């Protein structure tokens, strides 16, 4: 059946190639505009100051949400003698009934443990209940714009929809005209539409839980308290030190400490990774042969250096020594 669409306008009258070029420019401009507008408004904001009193639970919530808070809570309760580890399970210590010293979230966890549980199973079951206790952390973090706010996502969706309407509208119009004129060389037009759709979908779904500001703040906390990782392994940390270390860095920081067994509940030995000074991955190159002497191949370019190590102005260190 012929459809007579007698449309005469600049777009309808464009030849195929000309239109594809024009369409490509429109897509590029639209996608760039959407990309510019769909952004985290906290990108260049200054960071909040590190508070005098740090809340390990709030930091854990920022890092990874309710399940991480639950891990820190359970760990603190083990430290303070309300819970204990028996093999692969946690259970309540029977003679600890006085919960008056505990925070509400801690009371909730203790009360929920009626017999022995596997931690991962327990955390999944209790996470929903703990949401209400984490609401205060969520609010505080939202006030500081450390979490990605829901209304930013709504505005992103609106922007992407507008972009999609522009791209689809124009493409669909030309597609209909082409089909009406029985032109079937429309593959490129469809491909451009599909690719730009994928890009728009990616723009709107790429959001993370934490805003740029939140990520930068978390990184700042981890840089500032990095010595806690050494302290919990090699020094005599306090309960607060342990708690903060787990809040800031996660349960992984307990590897090799007195609480190594708690770490292993979440990271069983068969999937433990080899790490080095600043993190590395271990990849085996099996079957390779090597020369009998060690040698180095290097390509490096040195520019600005880094300063580390101790030493102030004084202290000759004297003629002392062994």
């Amino acid at each position, binding site marked *: 059946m012929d459809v007579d669409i007698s449309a005469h306008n600049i777009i309808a009258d464009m030849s195929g190639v000309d239109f594809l070029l024009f369409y490509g420019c429109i897509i590029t401009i639209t996608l760039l505009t959407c990309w510019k507008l769909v952004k985290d408004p906290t990108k260049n904001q200054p960071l909040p100051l590190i508070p005098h009193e740090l809340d390990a639970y709030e930091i854990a919530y920022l890092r990874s949400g309710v399940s991480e808070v639950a891990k820190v809570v359970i760990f603190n309760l083990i430290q303070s003698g309300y819970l204990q580890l028996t093999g692969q399970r946690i259970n309540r210590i029977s003679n600890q009934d006085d919960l008056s010293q505990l925070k509400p979230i801690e009371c909730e966890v203790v009360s929920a443990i009626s017999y022995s549980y596997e931690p991962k199973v327990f955390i999944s079951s209790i996470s929903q209940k703990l949401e209400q206790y984490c609401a205060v952390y969520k609010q505080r973090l939202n006030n500081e714009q450390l979490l990605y706010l829901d209304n930013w996502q709504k505005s992103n969706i609106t922007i992407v929809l507008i972009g999609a309407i522009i791209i689809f509208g124009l493409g669909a119009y030309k597609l209909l005209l082409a089909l009406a004129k029985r032109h079937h060389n429309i593959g490129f037009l469809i491909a451009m539409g599909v690719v730009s759709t994928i890009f728009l979908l990616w723009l709107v779904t790429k959001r993370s839980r934490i805003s740029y500001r939140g990520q930068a703040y978390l990184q700042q906390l981890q840089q500032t308290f990095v010595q806690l990782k050494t302290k919990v392994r090699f020094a005599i940390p306090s309960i607060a030190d342990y708690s903060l270390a787990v809040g800031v860095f996660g349960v992984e920081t307990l590897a090799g400490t007195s609480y190594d067994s708690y770490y292993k509940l979440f990271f069983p030995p068969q999937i433990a990774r*080899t790490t*080095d*000074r*600043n*993190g*590395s*991955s*271990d*990849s*085996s*190159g*099996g*079957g*390779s*042969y*090597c*020369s*009998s*002497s*060690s*040698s*180095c*191949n*290097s*390509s*490096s*370019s*040195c*520019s*600005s*250096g*880094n*300063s*580390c*190590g*101790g*030493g102030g102005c004084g*202290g*000759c*260190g*004297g*003629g*002392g*020594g*062994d």
Partner: protein
Amino acid sequence: MSLLQTQQLLARLYTNTEFRERFFANPQTVGAELGLSDDESHQLAQLSVQDVNLFANSLKWKRLGEVRQFLPRTHLALGKNFNALFWKYAESYIPSGIKKHRQDAIAFADFIAKVARDEGIEPPWVGDLVRYEQTWVLAYQASIYLRVCWFRYPVHQPENSDICIEKPTILVWWRFLGRPCLLICKGRLPYK
């Protein structure tokens, strides 16, 4: 004698053992070599030999203390030999500049590696260990860095008994603006 000359002489006295010994053994002769008058040499000879030696030693101890922080595992592995090797090395190179302690550590690591290669020192893996620690120092120095090294021993592992077992390893350091990272590739010994 001008302050400029005095300072130049003092700097050599503080940092060069051989020069210091020669000067205090014969201040007039050494002073004359430097263009000083007899009076000037005599004045400087009033410096307390004991005090100057104490200060000179303290400078080396200070360097040693700084270098130890950059090469802690090598220090642990070598024990007292670390200090003895440093004393031998310290006369041959005086670092300078803002990053002098870092440069000192790198140069001393080269010295240890050379001695380990040429003279063989215990433990046998210390040459690999010092190269490993040296590479970390170098990696932190540059903002863009890539280095691939072969090691006969698994020196990347924390201290344990396995470090003395030959286990050839390739280590790759890379850094792009952030902190340096390490990739470990292990191989097997050739079948004999």
